């Protein structure tokens, strides 16, 4: 099967600043791919390269098997792009702007009304100049989805939205699962955990790690059991019994490997023997934050 997106040895520098140093990246069709990295790691540059808005210094980029070329970029017909700060013409209405886009991509103007409805924008004559950031982001996703692209690329789409807007946006993306391939660049890891099935971690100009989210968690992050006690004295006692370093608080975190049940039973048995009862006893799942910190260390 042809990869939706395939980058091989992509290098890009601006002046003395090496942004990408031989980036390899593969996204298979149907994935929702979380492209994560710190601010300034080169996520936006990578996306602009994929869209032919920048010329790579070295390496090849392919979209569904077709090479990306700078300037004239036929592969863009397959891509819907939502820039981090989408800019529109303030003097047009949402519908007028989408009609312009549809005319450029020789898309069907009849798609506009359902699309506006899908992203939750009113189909009225209001001009974009009066739109809030959230409304502009909705229009951004509408223009990206116009013409039914096979690959949707979103650059930090949620960073400017309020919590409600973020929630709506992620639900919208999640609803597209299966109908197209999505690459979501972000540094907000909880967003990735919510909707992405695959992740790639960009650091130092290369992809340090990529794969299914679950695999990466297994590989890098450790599950743990969190306990809280009534007093610090009890916590200290428990720490001694369970053979973990003592803390000056009333919580203890016990990493474990393997299945939860046997690990938990073992801890409970040890506590029962010593007569110290925890107030809470909880399983802590591995998070992408842990994976991320581990990978970029």
């Amino acid at each position, binding site marked *: 099967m042809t990869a939706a997106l395939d980058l091989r040895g992509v290098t890009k520098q601006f002046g003395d600043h090496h942004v990408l140093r031989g980036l390899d990246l593969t996204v298979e069709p149907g994935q929702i791919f979380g492209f994560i990295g710190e601010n300034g790691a080169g996520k936006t540059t990578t996306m602009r390269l994929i*869209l032919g808005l920048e010329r790579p210094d070295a390496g090849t980029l392919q979209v569904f098997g077709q090479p990306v070329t700078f300037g004239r970029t036929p592969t863009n017909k397959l891509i819907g792009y939502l820039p981090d*700060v989408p800019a529109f013409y303030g003097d047009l209405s949402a519908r007028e702007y989408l009609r312009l886009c549809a005319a450029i991509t020789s898309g069907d103007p009849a798609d506009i009304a359902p699309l506006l409805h899908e992203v939750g924008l009113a189909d009225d004559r209001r001009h974009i100049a009066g739109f809030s950031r959230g409304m502009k982001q909705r229009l951004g996703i509408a223009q990206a989805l116009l013409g039914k692209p096979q690959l949707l690329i979103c650059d930090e789409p949620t960073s400017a939205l309020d919590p409600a807007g973020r929630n709506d946006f992620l639900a919208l993306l999640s609803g597209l699962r299966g109908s197209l391939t999505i690459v979501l660049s972000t540094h907000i890891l909880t967003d990735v955990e919510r909707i992405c099935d695959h992740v790639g971690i960009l650091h130092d100009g290369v992809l340090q790690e990529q794969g299914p989210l679950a695999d990466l968690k297994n590989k890098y992050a450790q599950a743990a059991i969190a306990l809280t006690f009534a007093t610090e004295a009890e916590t200290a006692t428990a720490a001694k019994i369970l053979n973990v370093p003592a803390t000056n608080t009333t919580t203890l975190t016990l990493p474990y490997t393997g299945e939860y049940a046997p690990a938990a039973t073992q801890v409970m048995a040890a506590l029962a023997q010593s007569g110290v009862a925890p107030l809470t006893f909880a399983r802590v799942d591995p998070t992408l934050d842990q994976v991320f910190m581990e990978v970029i260390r």
Partner: protein
Amino acid sequence: MSMSWLFFKKECLTFWRSRRALIMLVVFAALGILSPLMAKLTPEILKLSGATAALSALIPKADSAASWTQYYKNMSQIGLLVFAIVFGTSVSGELKDGTLINLVTKGLPRRAVILGKVALAILTWLGSVTLAFLISWAYTAYYFPDHKSPHLLAGLVALLVFGLLLSAVLIFGSSLGQNSAAGLLTGVGAYAGLAILNLFKSCQRFNPLSLLTDNMTLTTGGETLSHYTPAIVITIVATALLTWAAVRVLEEKRL
């Protein structure tokens, strides 16, 4: 070509909605009224200021030539300036706002952006200058029904043709950078360059600037339009070259 038409239509719509069309309309209509008014007022004001008999011989007569002189002065000063301000940020504004990124990634050729903008600028110049001309003409014909300006169209055509080059210079200049002054500065630079060339008498037939400065010579019949054929040809060629150059500049530009 259909993409250029598409972008041109977008340009027209935003030109209208942003009130820039209205500005051009009002300013040029006002200049059309002001020109005959100034021709009529100037002698009166000089008289009121108490000019002596000796000086009154120097007071310009209020006639159609005075009116058209005012017209061409207004067009080449305030009119030109307002036009340059309105169109001097045409491309740079879009580069600064990032509004082209979406459309270009969707497959809009950058060529279409330049062609659409140059076309709108040229049509606006032709329309505005003609509007001011018609208004001026109506007043002048009524107040100064003399025969001192027999070749009205020759002067007007020269001014209209000059607008082609002006439009191309402004669009080219504004595509050079995000700086909103780039278009204006390029226009000023081009104007200064042509003005220096115009100091040489032998150049004047070939200099596009003559089409902006010698309109009264044409209007009064001191020179025929065909005398300036070289300048007209050079203006049209330069317009085409600058438009092409603007396309090349934008194609290499980081959006």
